[in-house]
């Protein structure tokens, strides 16, 4: 086990810079997830840690050792690939043992290690099979077995679950988390699925165009996104993000969704907005409660009125897309309330839970 440090890591392919100076400190035993949209450089970063790709500049160290020039096999890492990369001409046993054979371990030591890993992953019965005789989940486990037997100081995962169906993905996610808890090795895990990131990570690293946008615990990035990019990327359904005019009159200020629908703002919020006349507002759908229009009639203040565009019953809740003025907002209603399209509804939200961003820079307005 060891900590992993990236200092000003840059990657260029020819003249094109793909990764623009990444700094990251990963603690011993930490589970760090890199997320970001396709092409943002997650895999490239991971491959540089693995030693499969050279650095254009910067340093990577594992433990106290700078590993820039070390071969992958000498870095004491193990990697699980998206398509598993199991050798189709070898049995499960041989696949798992392959690296140990290459390292010339004695036969009985190999045997012992492979069987231990197989037991941990529930593969004991499958050791003599070939990869094409396994289900997707089983193949995934073999790929993890191959990584585990090497006793690496750092595990690297590159979208290991993206080839699985939704149900299996959930199951394997739990298994990976359990694995981390039982062996406690540092893990760097790449995904573009934010649910995976939220559920697995001790810390999430959100990447965008070869830069780190934000690093934090899942709750940090969920509750305090530093930019509209992070806010829109983390959390399902996606946060409502709309640019709205701020109407200041005297000491009071309101957010205008439309001419009629205005949201009075607290002094705290007004202070954050400062002298801007527009602000980008983020509202999580879960913070936007939708009720029948007449039921909320007597409620005061933070109430908007809109008409239903689409209502999608999810069981416990109903996800409603409602139109307020020119804006479409996603909110949540009680599961027993499934309004028709066109029906009038009331939208209520707690002003304290609004996220505020500068409409120019898209950065969060400091609280």
């Amino acid at each position, binding site marked *: 086990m060891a900590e992993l440090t990236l200092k000003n890591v840059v990657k260029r392919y020819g003249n094109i810079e793909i990764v623009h100076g990444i700094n990251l400190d990963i603690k011993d035993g930490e589970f760090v997830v890199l997320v970001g949209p396709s092409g943002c450089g997650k895999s490239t970063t991971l491959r540089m840690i693995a030693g499969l790709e050279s650095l254009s500049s910067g340093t990577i160290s594992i433990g106290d050792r700078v590993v820039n020039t070390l071969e992958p096999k000498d870095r004491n890492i193990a990697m699980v690939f998206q398509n598993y990369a199991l050798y*189709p001409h070898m049995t499960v046993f041989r696949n798992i043992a*392959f*690296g140990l054979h*290459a390292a010339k371990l004695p036969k009985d030591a190999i045997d012992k290690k492979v069987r231990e890993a197989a037991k941990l992953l529930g593969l004991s019965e499958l050791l003599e099979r070939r990869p*094409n005789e396994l289900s997707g989940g089983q193949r995934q486990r073999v790929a993890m077995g*191959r990584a585990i037997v090497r006793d690496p100081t750092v595990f690297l995962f590159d979208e290991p679950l993206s080839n699985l169906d939704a149900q299996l993905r959930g199951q394997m996610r739990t298994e990976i988390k359990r694995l981390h808890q039982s062996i406690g090795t540092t893990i760097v895990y790449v995904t573009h699925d934010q649910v995976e990131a939220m559920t697995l990570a001790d810390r999430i690293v959100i990447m965008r165009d070869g830069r780190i946008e934000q690093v934090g615990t899942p709750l940090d990035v969920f509750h305090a996104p530093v930019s509209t990019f992070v806010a829109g990327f983390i959390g399902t359904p996606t946060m409502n993000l709309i640019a709205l005019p701020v109407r200041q009159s005297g000491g009071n200020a309101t957010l205008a969704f439309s001419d009629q629908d205005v949201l009075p703002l607290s002094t705290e919020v007004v202070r954050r907005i400062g002298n801007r006349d527009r602000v980008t507002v983020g509202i999580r759908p879960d913070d936007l409660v939708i009720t029948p229009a007449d039921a909320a009639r007597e409620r005061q203040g933070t109430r908007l009125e809109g008409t239903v565009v689409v209502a999608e019953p999810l069981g416990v809740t109903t996800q409603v897309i409602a139109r307020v003025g020119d804006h479409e907002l996603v909110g949540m209603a009680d599961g027993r309330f499934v309004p028709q399209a066109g029906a009038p509804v009331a939208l209520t939200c707690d002003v304290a839970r609004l996220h505020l961003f500068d409409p120019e820079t898209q950065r969060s307005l400091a609280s």
Partner: protein
Amino acid sequence: MTHASDTTTRGWSLGPVIHPGRIVAWTLLALGAVVMMVPLVYMVATSFKYPNEVYELNIIPHEPTLDNYTYIFQNTRFGIWFVNSLLTSSLVTVSVLFFDSLVGYTLAKFKFRGREFVFIAILTTLMIPTEMLIVPWYIMAKNFGWLNSYWGIMFPGLITGFGVFLMRQFFSGIPDDYIHAARIDGLNEFQIWWKVAMPLVTPALSALAIFTFLGNWTAFLWPLIATNDRALYTVPVGLASFSGEFLSDWELIMTGATLATLPTLIVFIIFQRYIIRGVVLAGLKG
């Protein structure tokens, strides 16, 4: 139970459904097979006939005989030619499989300056017909003193542009993750090629093995030119010398020809199984 009776009644009442397209396809295939097979069948049949029967059209000889076979092995050098052909064709095949896949892999999976240029240069060699190369080969062989040797017969075919091209295409199809995984597992580049990449392209290797072996087994022009010592003849060259020697002893020529086709059949039967298994492997996702 019900299901079984169901199908029988339906079978009786309606009969099997035959699509007209099928009939055409089968007829054409059958015709093709006949056209291809008839000469072969006569070749084999004639090899079991006595000379007086050679010009009769019967396929089963009236009096089947092995005399032609004993004659060929006792009174000609066919046995030696057979060994020559087997040796040179096998060695060339092994060499082609090894070097073509090594070069193909390098071109497919390593990035280096001039990679495209090398690849295109190799491709252009495919456009030069053998007939044009014979003279340079001959001059080369003569100056190096390679005429009348196994090496002289084999050297032009030890690496082929076609094989390099074929292998490069197949290696390009292997996901890099296999190679990355092997690198992390601690294999060196040569081991990665041999232990990981090669098993993944067995279908291509089988196809290349068949092409190369057959091509060399039936090669005529170059072995004819490269050798004039009868002890170094290959089967096709030797067979050709038969027709001069035995003039029209067709039963002997056909016996030689029959013997000459045996290895090609065997090679095909062996490698065909690998081709099919290889296709199954290639279809595997994980």
